[in-house]
């Protein structure tokens, strides 16, 4: 049976008993703590809602030209024309009854925001598919303002909307807006604040005047009224009505009629779509125009030709650009640090901390720990975020996700997973946050497992620096190839082992757009600052512990404990095992650490890697470093996102994979 038919059948439910409904909206709306009215911004994914929000509030909230990237609510205090209000940005929604895994239904999120008015952002060029949500919001009994957004793109497609007529039909203000340029945004929000004021001042007459006549068939209206009557009387069997809805009605946050429209959503939705179709036909005027260049290009992005070669080109160019920009920034920042900051830090810490071992450990944290952030974290992560923002805002990424979908399906992932996986080559931490764009916990866990197996810039640097000078650049390439194979096989295995299955793709493709520099910058900076605040404390603490272990000599017993495993399984000197284990605290130190420990163990002659490890051993070392246990910052992020149990399972799995693969490679190259 097709989904269309299933939708039809679902309508044939037993009718509710008929009683009288009050039809009154609650007089006083919930207001924010300081009495400012709350304005919720609602819209379908990818309608430019978050851009609209940023324009209205002057602040950036997470937004991307990829559907479904607003993952949490953003609240901002705004002041417009002397009136204060709180603006709340909600995740994109198709219907009020949307429910993504592990999250409350969309109407619950909306009610939790306690809106006094709702700005519904719709696509002026696609009213048929956007008006149903506006109708659903209006049916709640909360005043709405409709922002007919993307008006410029609609105009370019020859679509003109009679806003006055639409406003009459909706019985709500309608504003022509272009979020990207800020056109009409403040006017729309100002209107919403005005309506919210009417509502919270308790002017019931004004509210009643604003309440529209429902455009639905009489039988549907009767059904909703009957349901509302029962909800008002409190005699509704709870198995049909979510308890959250009943409590919202009891608390006066939602009228019984509003609640009834949520309960009867299945009956109302087809009617809303029918009304939208009718109204769109009445208010739209179409002129024959040549499709805009962006629309004609969009098709080529997703077509096998030239889409696939373009995809390969864009991927390689992105990685190349990130590496080039990252290396450049890394060198500049790194040398600036060594020249200006390091000597000062050393002098200050040595003077202030009397115990030498403690002073040394503190320096590990402040000097090398922060240097790692400045010279590895910042350059590579920031350049990656900038590039990612450009790819997202241009709309290219969604097209690429569709192209790659089938390939990622084999790993139990949708094509969208390509985005966080690409991010993982910069740093695993933001990549794991990035998995929030995926639908289910299963997909997020599988993607995070692959992410931890993907060498980040720090691990890649170790692979390159350990192999290129001593075993040749080809060995470095081969190592990356082996790592890729390991990740692929592990991903296939994980997909087979983790219970559950993947939901098939249904994705709306955004049009191609020229990215706006300011928005790209704001987005990259927003993500970058959350990376810095997460990673910096962990790096400081990790480096301090590492320094402490090294300076106090506690490192020796650790080495003895793991020597059999390291020598027997991987064919490596025990020192290498210590470096591998401690690299958990700071991955990019895997190499420096190896050298330092080697010198301590074997004397000054070991200062070149080649002096105490063969090329084969270096190859194994590089691969195990690249694949094994994520760094402490990644582990902390995994725990924060999935809980400690899953975090330890994922980390344990990578350790298992690394040891098994290392053991196999060691036997293949003949060192064990």
């Amino acid at each position, binding site marked *: *049976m*097709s*989904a*269309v*038919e299933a*939708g*039809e059948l679902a309508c044939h439910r037993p009718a509710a008993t008929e009683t009288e409904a009050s039809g009154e909206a609650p007089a006083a709306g919930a207001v924010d703590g300081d009495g400012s009215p709350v304005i919720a911004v609602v819209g379908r994914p990818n309608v430019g809602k978050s851009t609209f929000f940023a324009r209205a509030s002057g602040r950036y909230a997470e937004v991307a030209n990829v559907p479904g990237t607003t993952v949490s609510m953003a609240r901002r205090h705004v002041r417009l024309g002397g009136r204060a209000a709180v603006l709340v940005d909600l995740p994109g929604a*198709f*219907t009020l009854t*949307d429910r993504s895994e592990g999250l409350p239904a969309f109407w619950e999120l909306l009610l939790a925001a306690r809106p006094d008015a709702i700005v519904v952002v719709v*696509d002026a*060029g*696609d009213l*048929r*598919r956007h008006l149903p949500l506006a109708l659903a919001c209006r049916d709640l009994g909360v005043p709405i303002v409709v922002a007919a957004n993307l008006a410029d793109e609609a105009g370019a*497609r020859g*679509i003109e909307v009679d806003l006055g007529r639409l406003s009459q039909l909706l019985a709500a203000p309608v504003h022509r807006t272009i979020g990207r340029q800020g056109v009409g945004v403040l006017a729309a929000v100002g209107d919403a604040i005005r309506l919210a004021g009417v509502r919270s001042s308790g002017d019931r007459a004004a509210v009643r005047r604003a309440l529209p006549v429902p455009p639905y068939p009489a039988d549907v209206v009767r059904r909703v009224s009957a349901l509302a009557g029962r909800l008002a009387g409190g005699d509704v069997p709870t198995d049909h009505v979510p308890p959250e809805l009943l409590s919202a009605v009891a608390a006066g946050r939602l009228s019984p009629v509003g609640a009834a429209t949520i309960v009867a959503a299945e009956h109302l*939705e*087809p009617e809303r*779509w029918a009304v939208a179709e009718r109204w769109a036909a009445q208010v739209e005027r179409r002129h024959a125009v040549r499709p805009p260049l962006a629309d004609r290009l*969009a*098709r080529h992005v*997703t*077509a*096998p030709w030239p*889409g*696939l070669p373009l995809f390969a080109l864009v991927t390689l160019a992105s990685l190349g650009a990130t590496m080039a920009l990252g290396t450049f920034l890394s060198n500049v920042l790194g040398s600036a640090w060594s020249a200006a900051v390091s000597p000062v830090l050393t002098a200050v810490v040595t003077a202030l901390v009397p115990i030498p071992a403690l002073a040394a450990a503190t320096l590990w944290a402040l000097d090398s720990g922060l240097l790692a952030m400045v010279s590895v974290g910042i350059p590579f992560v920031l350049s990656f975020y900038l590039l990612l923002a450009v790819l997202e805002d241009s709309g290219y990424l969604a097209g690429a996700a*569709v*192209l*790659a*979908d*089938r*390939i990622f399906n084999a790993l139990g992932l949708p*094509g969208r997973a390509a985005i966080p996986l690409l991010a993982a080559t910069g740093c695993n931490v933001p990549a794991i946050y990035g998995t929030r764009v995926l639908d289910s916990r299963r997909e997020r866990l599988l993607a995070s497992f692959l992410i931890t197996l993907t060498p980040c810039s720090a691990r890649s640097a170790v692979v390159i620096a350990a192999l290129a000078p001593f075993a040749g650049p080809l060995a470095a390439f081969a190592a990356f190839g082996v790592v890729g194979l390991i990740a692929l096989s592990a991903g296939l295995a994980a997909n087979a082992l983790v219970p559950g299955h993947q939901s*098939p*793709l*249904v*994705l*709306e*493709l955004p049009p191609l757009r020229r990215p706006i520099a300011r928005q790209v910058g704001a987005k990259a900076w927003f993500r970058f600052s959350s990376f810095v605040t997460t990673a910096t404390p962990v790096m400081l603490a990790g480096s301090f512990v590492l320094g402490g272990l090294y300076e106090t000599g506690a490192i020796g017993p650790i080495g003895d404990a793991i020597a059999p495993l390291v020598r027997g399984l991987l064919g490596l000197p025990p020192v290498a095992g210590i470096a591998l284990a401690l690299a958990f605290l700071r991955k990019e130190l895997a190499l420096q650490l190896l050298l330092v420990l080697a010198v301590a163990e074997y004397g000054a002659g070991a200062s070149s890697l080649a002096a105490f490890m063969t090329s084969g051993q270096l190859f194994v070392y590089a691969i195990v470093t690249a694949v094994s246990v994520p760094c402490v910052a990644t582990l902390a992020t995994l725990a924060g996102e999935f809980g400690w149990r899953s975090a330890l399972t994922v980390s344990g799995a990578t350790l298992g994979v690394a040891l098994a693969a290392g053991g196999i490679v060691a036997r293949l190259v003949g060192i064990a």
Partner: protein
Amino acid sequence: MLAAHGIRPGVVVSVEDDAPFGGPRIIRLGPARLAIARVVAAAIRVRPEPAADAARTR
């Protein structure tokens, strides 16, 4: 899910392309482009629309 995207009885859709390796089918629905997994797309019942290079769901 399809209904939320606007694929409802009576709407006009047209197939634009198929992503490679058995990837999603890209369909047009008014100005919107949707990428839909083949298995889902196969469940949409269509009949040809007379006098237009488009199809109509039933």
